[in-house]
């Protein structure tokens, strides 16, 4: 069954087309990757899927509900969570608090209850802490619990962002270049983490430039170029598709040198 159905999606900025008439479906429980050369429109796609941009045309249906027209926090309420290409950490907070923010939708207490520290709030606070610790543990971050986010190395921050997204207990996790800037060991760990997330029953939509990673973790791959679909299929199909190879390495140009 398709968890996410995208149909006829288009978006342009000031006359420049970023995404044009794109269709695809993400089956529940899979790791589905979107790849394409730089500037192919992948981040724009993610921003539309999470409600940050409104598409010019088309529909995005998540669990049979329309996402287009909802504000990001309303999209999040449906069970979509995401990470960002350029880290969007809350650097003014501790590691634990960062992940606790992820529990925002699973808790309810309002400003006034919190201010007066009513008993319900305290109970909820304990619960949130439990969930946050769970998410941190899941991502292998237990030992950083007490630190401030701005004291962490880059590779750890990448995983922290995932822990925060997982704390929201999402149905669909959008991951925007989780391995960008990571070294080989960190990339390996990231690969394992993505697998674990998928095994936990969370559908993953992945944008990534590290092809080794993409080929290993993906169930299906969508290739886009100039904002539209170039190919779709299993990792092996994609790797042997001549159009994909040309899109990446470019066509050869003949010169009489």
């Amino acid at each position, binding site marked *: 069954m398709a968890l996410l159905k995208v149909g006829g999606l288009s978006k342009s900025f000031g006359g420049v087309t970023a995404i044009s008439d794109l269709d695809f479906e993400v089956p529940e429980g899979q790791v589905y990757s979107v790849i394409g050369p730089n500037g192919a429109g992948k981040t724009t796609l993610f921003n539309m899927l*999470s*409600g*940050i941009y409104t598409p010019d045309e088309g529909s995005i249906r998540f669990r049979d509900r329309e996402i287009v027209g909802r*504000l*990001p*926090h309303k999209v*999040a*309420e449906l069970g979509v*969570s*995401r990470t*960002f290409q350029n880290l*969007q*950490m*809350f*650097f*003014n*907070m501790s590691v634990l*608090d960062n992940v*606790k*923010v*992820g*529990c*925002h*939708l699973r*808790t*309810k*207490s*309002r*400003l006034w209850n*919190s*201010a*007066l*520290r009513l008993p319900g*709030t305290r109970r*909820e*606070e304990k619960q*949130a802490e439990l969930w946050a610790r769970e998410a941190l543990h899941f991502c292998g971050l237990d*030992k*950083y619990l*007490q*630190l401030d986010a*701005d*004291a*962490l*190395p*880059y590779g*750890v921050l990448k995983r922290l962002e995932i822990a*925060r*997204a997982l704390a*929201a207990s999402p149905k669909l996790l959008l991951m925007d270049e989780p391995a960008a800037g990571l070294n080989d060991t960190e990339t390996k760990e990231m690969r394992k983490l993505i697998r674990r997330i998928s095994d936990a029953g969370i559908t993953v939509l992945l944008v990534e430039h590290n092809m080794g990673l993409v080929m290993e973790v993906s169930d299906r791959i969508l290739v886009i170029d100039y904002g539209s679909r170039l190919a779709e299929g299993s990792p092996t199909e994609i790797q042997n598709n001549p159009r994909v190879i040309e899109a990446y390495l470019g066509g050869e140009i003949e010169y009489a040198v």
Partner: protein
Amino acid sequence: MSYLRGFYLLTAAALLLPLVFPDNYYVTVVGVTAALHAILAVSLNLLMGYAGQISLGHAGFFGIGAYASAILTTRYGWNPWPAILAGLVLTGIIAFALARPILRLKGHYLAMATLGLGIIINIVLVQTGELTGGPDGLGGIPTLSLFGWNVNSDLRWYIVIVCVMLLVVWLALNIINSRSGRALRALHGSEVAAEMMGINTTATKTGVFVLAALIASLAGSLFAYQQSFVSPDSFSFFFSIELVTMVVLGGMASTYGAIMGAVILTFLPELLVVFEEYEVMIFGAILMLMMIFLPQGLFVGIQSLLRRVGRNRSELAGPDTGEPEESGRGAA
């Protein structure tokens, strides 16, 4: 709770001071003003330091509270307590109505809009002379009384205002360490990410703006009763700037920093009086130098200094056991 440990210390210190130094001018007179400033700075810090929304018009809400109490008690003979409430209601309505359009703005535009708002409020106070007494101000404001206990001495005012300050600090600390407080800090850290975590950023900003305005209004009412006189000068654009300075000087996003900034900026002029005509110049220079060399503020600066001293000491004592912290920082 662990985050309240500092609060108990603050409470003990604030309440012990007048016992140790009874009838001391610096405690009961300057101290009252410092506590009042601390209330304002803590509230502004919720908005500015935690939620990241600059306001150069906070004195305006302080003024609305003060004048609401002053006018209702002197011209209409109200009891001071319902007058405080009326001030809060009025402030709440104004703040709520303006929050959305104002907080849609960012950076310099937000600064300018809040500054303009503060100036407009001030001009209205000056111009509606038949109500406010105009530039000459309004005197004869009655004092507060609590079940027959008249707040009529410096020491009693110290107790009342310090208690209110402690209450405000307690509320602020509770908020910061709760779901709502995390939402505030999150939208400061990254508005997009906050939205993606399900936080309604518009509603959160509105909420904290109104809350900060309400606390300022309460402080204004207290100020009116304590002084028994108000004039527009106390609520000018300069005072808004001074409040922002308190927050930034002490250290943004730290309640104790805001208190520290309030106390320092209240006592600094008392000390600078020695330098007479150099006072303004030194004040400006301190402001500039602090922001250039210590932009995170005094409180954080001192904290990291202490931490560094502490670390050196633990290194002397033997092999370091706090390895996750060290490895984390080392790699960064």
